[in-house]
């Protein structure tokens, strides 16, 4: 017996089995207690509630949602809302972050000052405070009758209104085809066609499809743009960004851009100066040094942090609930209040976010694998 206890192999085995038993007991007792408490409240378990109609309205959705929609449909609408605001945030924050990073690495002192001030102001204030601020600002705008007009953009307390292209389903399909074809053209290996040919091919394809889009698929005289116009007490036409959506998007983009700026700047600064000087010594121009040496190396350095930041921003969309934007979390929490199906809905909540975040990590890791310097680790 003592020999058995002294054997390290046995002790390791015993410790790990003990751990499994403890975790199992905790989970089991939680399930038992939970079952008893839920039964005491008279709530049915299981996912059958997903088939029921909700009976409450949702104030913003990209798919048609009414009070008669089922829980499954409304939850799907919430997930789409999260993805809409999330992916738009990633796109816009990356663009703004890139511009700010270029400001910060420029040799111009004033541009540096503007970039640095922006980053320090927007990074050091909680994102929820910024979202509250923009929401208050947007809802305190004048009513539609006294709306502020900045050119074709209209600002009122009903939201931000922009002119929109009048696109039919067929137009959208063509646009999708154009983007896919352009992507395919760019994807053809450079050494077979030559870079110039590849780019011009892409340009020609894109132009052809845009022309086809604009000319052949619409009635003669039908306007290309729909502009918001005041009719009675409200605006019609154009595209309206509701205050909830606009405030959340603005807040997240301005906050995210400050972080992304720092990641991009770090990436650009991480490129060894010797490599840039070597490029100059080989007779490359400043633009070529940036395009061929600096940016490819910088992207490799910044991708892992950028992935983390993207996942973080995706999760940060949950603050939308504070101003009434019906994102996935908001829909789940309202559903919990209405049905009491707490555990099932929390499982769906976790599944939704794990799905989105793992897709981002997966896509970014694929990009990383594709561009990383081959032959090293």
């Amino acid at each position, binding site marked *: 017996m003592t020999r058995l206890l002294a054997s390290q192999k046995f002790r*390791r085995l015993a*410790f*790990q089995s003990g*751990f*499994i038993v403890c*975790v199992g007991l905790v989970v089991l007792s*939680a*399930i038992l*207690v*939970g079952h008893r*408490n*839920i039964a005491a409240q008279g709530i049915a378990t299981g996912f059958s509630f997903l088939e029921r109609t909700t009976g409450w309205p949702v104030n913003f959705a990209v798919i048609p949602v009414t009070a008669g929609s089922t829980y499954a449909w409304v939850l799907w609408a919430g997930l789409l809302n999260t993805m809409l605001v999330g992916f738009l945030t990633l796109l816009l924050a990356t663009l703004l972050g890139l511009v700010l990073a270029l400001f910060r690495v420029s*040799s*111009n*002192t*004033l*541009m540096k*000052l*503007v970039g640095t001030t922006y980053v*320090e*102001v927007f990074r*050091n*204030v*909680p*994102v*929820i*405070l910024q979202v*509250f*601020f923009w929401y*208050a*600002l947007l809802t*305190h705008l004048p009513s539609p009758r006294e709306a502020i007009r900045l050119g074709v953009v209209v600002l009122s307390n009903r939201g931000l209104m922009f002119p929109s292209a009048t696109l039919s389903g067929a137009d959208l399909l063509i646009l999708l085809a154009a983007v896919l074809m352009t992507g395919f053209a760019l994807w053809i290996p450079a050494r077979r066609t030559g870079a110039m040919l590849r780019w011009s091919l892409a340009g020609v394809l894109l132009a052809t499809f845009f022309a086809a889009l604009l000319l052949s698929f619409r009635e003669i005289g039908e306007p290309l743009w729909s502009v918001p116009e005041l009719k009675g007490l409200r605006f019609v036409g154009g595209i309206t960004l509701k205050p909830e959506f606009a405030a959340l998007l603005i807040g997240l983009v301005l906050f995210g851009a400050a972080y992304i700026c720092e990641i991009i700047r770090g990436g650009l600064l991480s490129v060894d100066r010797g490599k840039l000087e070597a490029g100059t010594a080989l007779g490359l121009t400043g633009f070529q040094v940036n395009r061929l040496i600096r940016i490819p190396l910088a992207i490799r350095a910044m991708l892992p942090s950028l992935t983390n930041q993207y*996942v973080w921003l995706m*999760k*940060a969309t*949950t*603050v939308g*609930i*504070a101003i009434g934007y019906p994102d996935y*979390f908001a829909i789940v*929490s309202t559903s*919990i209040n209405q049905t009491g199906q*707490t*555990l099932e809905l*929390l499982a769906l*909540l*976790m599944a939704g*976010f*794990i799905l989105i*975040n*793992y897709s981002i990590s997966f896509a970014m890791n694929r990009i990383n694998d594709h561009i990383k310097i081959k032959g090293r680790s």
Partner: protein
Amino acid sequence: MAETMPDTLIGAMAPPVIRSGPAAWLRKHFFATWYDAVFSVLFAVLIVWVLQALLQWTVIDAIWRVENRDLCTREAGACWAVIESRGRLILFGLYPFDEQWRSTLACLAIIVTIALSCLPAFWSFKRLPALWIAGFGIFVLLMRGGFAGLPLVTSEQWGGLSLTLFIFSGVVVIGMPLAVLFALARRSSLPVIAKSFGFFIDIVRSLPLLALLFAAAVVVPLLLPDALAGNKLMRVVVAFAIFFAAYQAEIIRAGLQSIPNGQGEAAVALGMPYWSRVIDILLPQAFRNTLPSTINQAVITFKETSIVTIIGFFEVMASGNAAIGNGEWGNQYVEVYVFLALIYFVFVFGLSRYGAWLEQRMRLGHD
């Protein structure tokens, strides 16, 4: 080698002209190229315009005293009278008016704790935990009272900045030991332990903080016997601490990985037991190597305490919203949000500057 040499040598280039003096400095930093010049002029105009407008709004046209609040209109500057009128609500929440000096002292205790833990003299495995437990203890005793003639104030009445600081320090005090535990467990040589903690950490990291806090506030009481459930604030602080620990554990793990293997092996060769090896050899180095990331994590945590406002706690963000929530000061939202932003900015900017300075100093030590 010889055949690669050119027949004739390329003529030597002239040495670069070194310019100095104010004109050269101006040219280098503002007018290096024609587009630099355009940008410089544009940005100069922009900066002057923004600064002028800011000064006008915050100081020159501002209304400072509550007596003059009738002058607060859309056209006037900042109406700082709202801060005079609602400042106490924002800073102390619903804490009893006569006892607010205790809330102030408690906040100071936490601020002093944060400041002291920035001093290298406190960076030891005995002093740092002792400092934080003492600071946190003083805070809770002062806020709660119920002894030596101080009236009892339960945590439901805590609010404002002191609740923010309570959540922050509670998360750090509970989360830091948890983070060490998670990091060690994930690096354990026992496969079951390492795998299950790895899985747990990854799941927590992929969830939004808000979802975790919401689950702690709403779901945990369903799963725990009533005796264990505790009050809502405690549950939320513990859930927040687990979230913090999952992130901090990965930082500590990176720090542990950066230590050369020889260090641990030398300790084994000397016959040091596991815990002594970890506490005296590995963890001090791991923490030292990852100080900047740790401070960054603390900064993020401080900002994220504002999230608890959504699940119904009256911390400084929520009390700020309450200050403008009723009709009386409803139009002064910009002033109140600017005031809140300044409060967060002081803490967050101070800590992150300190982190940057530390990083600089450590880099100097290494080179």
